C-alpha cells in the first residue's frame, strides 16, 4: 500500500467531486441559501404577525337599541387602548343585517350583541366572529380580554359596596420569589443540545450520501472504473482513497452547516430580545471543551457513515438501485439521530455502544455541560472500532473487479417488479434491514395504537401484522419458502427435546431473572406492561394471543426470515446463530428481557440448526409463552412444580435450581441432537436425509 498513490487518487476524487456542478450547487445551496431563507422567512412572518396584532385597528360593530349599553361598551373598548394597546373602530348596526356576511366580507371583524337590563347595564352578550379568519379570531380574543376586565371591575365595585375593607383584603397575601440555579450557559446549552445533534447527523449523512453513490456505482456506470483498474493500483488503495474522499466531503458539508447556523445565531444575537435573556453575559469559554470533543467525535462519525455508505453502494448494481438503498439507510440512520431528541433519554454505557445514537446523545450531553470522561471514551472507542471493522470489510470483501464485472450483490431485492423476480430466491442482507424496519414501524406505532384502543385484541392485530410482514415480503419476492423458512417435518426426538430444553431454560431463566433483579433493581421497573394485559383478556384468549400467536409470528420473522436468509450467506453458521439470538433479544426493547431472551435465542438457534425445522422452535416458543400465561392465571399450579417459581429468599435453593436447569438442558440436548445425541441419525438414515435435502 502506497500513501502516495492513495493521495493522488484522493486528489483526483476531490477534484472530480468539486467539478461536478450539480452536487456542489446542491451541497452549497442547502445550508447557505435554503436554511437562511427558511429561517429569515419564518422570522419575518413571526414579527409581522406580532406587529399586526398590536398596531392594526379592528372593526367592531355593536347591535343594541339601548344607548346606555352602547356607551358602556364604547368606553370600555376605548379604555382598552390605554391599558392593553388594542385599537377598535366602533360603529352601530341594525340587527336585521346578515352578520355572517358582514364578517365574511371583512366589513367588520367582530360583532357584539348585548342584552340590556332596564338601567342599561349589560345582562348577557353574544360575540359573533369567524375563528377561521385570522383578523376576526384575534379580534374575538381581544374582545374577550376587554370584557373580562370589565367583569372584574363590576365584581370589584359590587364587593367594595358591601365589604368596607375590600381593597385591603384583595391585596396579594404573599409574594413568590423565584431563584433559578441554571446558569445562562446551561440554558443556552440545553437549546443547542436539542438542535446540534440532529443538525450534525443530518449534515454528515447528506454529505456522505451525496457523493458516495457517485464515486462507487456512478463511476462504474460512467465507465471510468475500468480505466482506473488498468492502472497499477491495489484494491486497498483504491477503496481507501474513495473512503477518505467521501469522509472529507461529508466534513465539508458539516463545516458549511456550522457556518450557516453560526450566521443565523449571530443574527438572532443582534436582533432579538431573546438573546439578551439567554446570552447576556454568556461565558462562551465554558463551551470550548464541548466543541473540542465534538470536533474529535464528528470526524470519526463521518468516517463511520462514509464507510458504511460506500460498502452499501458497492453492493448495488446501478445508481438507481443505490438510491433505493440510500433511502433505507437514511431511515435507519435517522432513527439513531432522533434518539437524542426523545426527552429523558440519557447517554449511558449501554447506549454509548449503539452506533449513531451514541454520537447524537454525546453531543447533546456535551452542550448540556455533562462531560463524563468514561462515556466520551466509550463513544469514541466504539465508533473507532465500528469504523475499522467496516473499513476492513470494505477493503477485503469488495474488490474493484467484482464491483465492475459482477451483477452487483443485489442486497435489496424488493424494488423489482414481481414478474422479474427470480423464482425461489434468497433475500439479501439489505432485505433483512428493510423488512425489519417495516415490521418495527408497524409493531411500534400501529401496534401501540391498537393496544391502547382495544387492549388484548389490539395485541392480536399487532401479532397478526408481524406475522404477515415477513410472509408477504417473501411472497412478493418469490422467496424459496422451504429453504428460508426451514419448512420440514420435525423428528419425534426433536419435539421431545424441544419440550425438555424448554423446561430447562424456563427454570434457568427464573433463577437468572431473580439474580438480575437483585443485582440491578432498576431493571424491574418497566417489566410489567405485558403482564398487565394478561390480566384483562381472560384465560383462553390470553393463552392464544400471548402464548401461541407471538410464537408463530416471531418465529416467522426471526428463525424464518432472518436466520433463513443469513444461513444462505457466506457467514459462519455460528455467527448466524448468535446474530439471530441477539437481534431477537434486542427486539424486545427491554434490558432485562435482552439478557435472558439472548440465552433463549441461542437455544432456539441451536434447535433450528440441529433440526432444520421451524416447527421445533415454534413448539418451544409457544409452550414457553403459554407457561407464563398459565402461571399468572393459576399461580397455585406453579407452586406445585418444583423449581419453577423463585421468591429469591433461598440462595441455596436457587443454586440447586440452576444445576437442575443445566442438567435438564443437557438432557434436552442429548435427546434432540441428531449427530451425537441418544437418538442420533444412523449413517444409513443420514445419507437418506442428505440425498433428500440435495434433491
Amino acid at each position, binding site marked *: 500500500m502506497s500513501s502516495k498513490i492513495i493521495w*493522488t487518487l484522493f486528489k483526483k476524487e476531490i*477534484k472530480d467531486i468539486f*467539478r461536478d456542478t450539480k452536487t456542489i450547487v446542491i451541497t452549497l445551496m442547502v445550508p447557505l441559501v435554503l436554511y437562511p431563507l427558511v429561517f429569515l422567512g419564518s422570522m419575518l412572518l413571526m414579527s409581522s404577525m406580532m406587529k399586526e396584532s398590536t398596531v392594526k385597528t379592528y372593526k367592531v360593530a355593536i347591535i343594541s337599541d339601548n344607548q346606555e349599553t352602547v356607551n358602556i361598551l364604547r368606553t370600555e373598548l376605548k379604555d382598552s387602548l390605554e391599558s392593553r394597546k388594542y385599537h377598535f373602530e366602533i360603529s352601530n348596526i341594525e340587527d336585521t343585517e346578515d352578520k355572517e356576511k358582514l364578517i365574511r366580507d371583512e366589513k367588520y371583524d367582530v360583532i357584539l350583541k348585548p342584552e340590556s337590563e332596564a338601567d342599561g347595564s349589560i345582562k348577557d352578550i353574544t360575540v359573533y366572529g369567524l375563528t377561521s379568519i385570522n383578523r376576526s379570531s384575534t379580534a374575538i380574543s381581544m374582545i374577550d380580554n376587554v370584557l373580562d376586565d370589565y367583569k372584574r371591575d363590576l365584581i370589584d365595585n359590587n364587593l367594595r359596596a358591601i365589604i368596607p375593607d375590600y381593597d385591603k383584603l384583595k391585596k396579594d397575601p404573599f409574594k413568590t420569589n423565584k431563584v433559578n440555579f441554571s446558569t445562562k450557559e446551561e440554558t443556552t446549552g440545553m437549546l443547542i443540545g436539542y438542535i446540534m445533534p440532529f443538525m450534525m447527523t443530518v449534515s454528515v449523512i447528506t454529505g456522505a450520501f451525496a457523493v458516495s453513490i457517485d464515486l462507487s456505482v456512478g463511476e462504474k456506470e460512467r465507465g471510468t472504473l475500468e480505466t482506473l483498474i488498468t492502472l497499477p493500483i491495489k484494491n486497498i488503495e483504491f477503496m481507501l482513497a474513495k473512503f477518505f474522499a467521501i469522509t472529507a466531503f461529508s466534513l465539508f458539508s458539516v463545516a458549511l452547516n456550522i457556518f450557516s447556523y453560526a450566521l443565523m445565531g449571530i443574527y438572532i444575537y443582534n436582533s432579538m430580545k431573546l438573546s439578551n435573556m439567554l446570552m447576556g453575559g454568556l461565558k462562551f469559554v465554558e463551551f470550548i471543551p464541548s466543541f473540542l470533543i465534538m470536533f474529535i467525535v464528528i470526524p470519526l462519525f463521518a468516517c463511520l457513515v462514509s464507510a458504511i455508505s460506500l460498502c452499501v453502494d458497492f453492493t448495488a448494481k446501478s445508481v438507481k438501485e443505490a438510491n433505493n438503498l440510500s433511502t433505507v439507510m437514511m431511515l435507519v440512520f435517522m432513527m439513531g439521530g432522533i434518539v437524542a431528541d426523545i426527552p429523558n433519554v440519557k447517554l449511558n454505557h449501554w447506549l454509548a455502544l449503539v452506533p449513531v445514537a451514541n454520537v447524537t446523545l454525546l453531543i447533546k450531553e456535551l452542550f448540556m455541560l455533562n462531560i463524563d470522561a468514561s462515556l466520551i471514551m466509550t463513544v469514541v472507542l466504539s465508533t473507532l472500532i465500528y469504523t475499522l471493522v467496516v473499513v476492513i470489510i470494505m477493503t477485503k470483501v469488495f474488490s474493484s473487479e467484482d464491483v465492475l464485472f459482477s451483477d452487483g450483490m443485489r442486497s435489496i431485492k424488493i424494488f423489482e417488479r414481481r414478474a422479474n*423476480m427470480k423464482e425461489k430466491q434468497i433475500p439479501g442482507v439489505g432485505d433483512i434491514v428493510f423488512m425489519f424496519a417495516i415490521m418495527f414501524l408497524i409493531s411500534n406505532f400501529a401496534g401501540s395504537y391498537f393496544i391502547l384502543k382495544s387492549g388484548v385484541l389490539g395485541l392480536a392485530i399487532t401479532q397478526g401484522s408481524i406475522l404477515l410482514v415477513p410472509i408477504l415480503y417473501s411472497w412478493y419476492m418469490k422467496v424459496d419458502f422451504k429453504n428460508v423458512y426451514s419448512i420440514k417435518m420435525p423428528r419425534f426426538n426433536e419435539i421431545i427435546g424441544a419440550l425438555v430444553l424448554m423446561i430447562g431454560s424456563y427454570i434457568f431463566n427464573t433463577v437468572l431473572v431473580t439474580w438480575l433483579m437483585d443485582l440491578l433493581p432498576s431493571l424491574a421497573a418497566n417489566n410489567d406492561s405485558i403482564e398487565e394485559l394478561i390480566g384483562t383478556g381472560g384465560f383462553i384468549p390470553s393463552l392464544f394471543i400471548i402464548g401461541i400467536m407471538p410464537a408463530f409470528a416471531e418465529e416467522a420473522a426471526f428463525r424464518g426470515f432472518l436466520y433463513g436468509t443469513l444461513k444462505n450467506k457466506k457467514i459462519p453458521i455460528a455467527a448466524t446463530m448468535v446474530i439471530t439470538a441477539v437481534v431477537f433479544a434486542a427486539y424486545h426493547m427491554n434490558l432485562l428481557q435482552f439478557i435472558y431472551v439472548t440465552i433463549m435465542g441461542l437455544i432456539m438457534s441451536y434447535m433450528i440448526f440441529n433440526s432444520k425445522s421451524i416447527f421445533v422452535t415454534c413448539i418451544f416458543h409457544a409452550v414457553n409463552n403459554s407457561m407464563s400465561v398459565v402461571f399468572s392465571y393459576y399461580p397455585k399450579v406453579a407452586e406445585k412444580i418444583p423449581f419453577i417459581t423463585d421468591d429469591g429468599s433461598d440462595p441455596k435453593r436457587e443454586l440447586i435450581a440452576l444445576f437442575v436447569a443445566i442438567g435438564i438442558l443437557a438432557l434436552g440436548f442429548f435427546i434432540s441432537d441428531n449427530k451425537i445425541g441418544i437418538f442420533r441419525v444412523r449413517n444409513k438414515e443420514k445419507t437418506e436425509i442428505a440425498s433428500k435435502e440435495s434433491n
Partner: protein
Amino acid sequence: MIEARNLKKSFIRNINTTNEKKSFLSSKKTKEEFFAVNDISLAAKGGEILGILGPNGAGKTTLLRMLGNLMTPTSGEVIITDEAGNILTKEVDKKKRIGYLSGNTKLYNRFSTREMLLMFADIYGIEKEESLKKIEEIETVLDMSTFIDNRIEKLSTGQTQRANIARCLIHSPDIYIFDEPTLGLDVISSDAIVKFMKNEKEKGKTVLYSTHYMEEAQYLCDNIFMIYEGKKLAFDTPKNLMEKTNTDNLRDTFKRLIETTDNQETKEVIDEQ
C-alpha cells in the same frame, strides 16, 4: 512477451428455459454456469501484432481483460516478462507493462487530457519532470495540441479516442492491448491508429488487438487468433490461414472456419444420438 496458458473464465447467467409468454406472476428462469473463455492458450513476442478475431459474444473482450490483468481468470494464468525476460509475479508490476484500451475504458469527463495524464503518470510513479517531457512528446505524436487543455467532455469522438490512446502511452508500456480501437471512427482517425500500432511494432513492442475489420487485420497482423464461442478456432499467420481454407481473403477464411465448426458440432450431436 505475453503468454496465456489455459485461460478459462466462467460466469453465472440466467437463462429462460421456456419460450412461454411471461405472466405477471411468474417467469421461469434458471441459473447456468457458462464459459466465456474456455481453455485458451496464446503467446505474442515483441515486434509482433496479434489480431484477435471473432464474432460478437465470442469472448474477445473477456480474453483481453484477463490478458490485461483487469479480470482474474477462473483457471489458467497470464505470463508477462520484463525486458530481461524475468517472469513478473506482482499484478502491479504486470499492469505497469501493459497499455490497455477498449470501448469500455471511458475517461474522466471533468478533467482535461493534460490533468488526466499527469494524474496517471503520478500513479505509475513517474517523476514530475519526466512526465512533463513525456506528455509533450505524446502531444506531438498524437497531434493533440489544440485540445489537450480542454475538458474531456467537450472533445469529439476522434479526439476522445486519441486522448484515450495517450493515456495508454504515458508509462511507455511494451505490450499494448487494444479492444476494437478503430470501432466507430472515421477513415482518418482509424488510419492514425493503425499507423500508430505499426510504428510501435517497429519499435519492438507487442500489440494485441481485436477487431471486426478483416481487411485491416489481414494487412496489419503478423498472427491471427480466431475465437468462437469461447474456444480457439485457429491460431496462425494470415497467409497460412488463407492457404489452409483455400480462400483469398480473411473475411472468407473466417466464414469458412465458423461454418466447418458449426457443421462438426451438428455432426457430433447426430453421431451421439
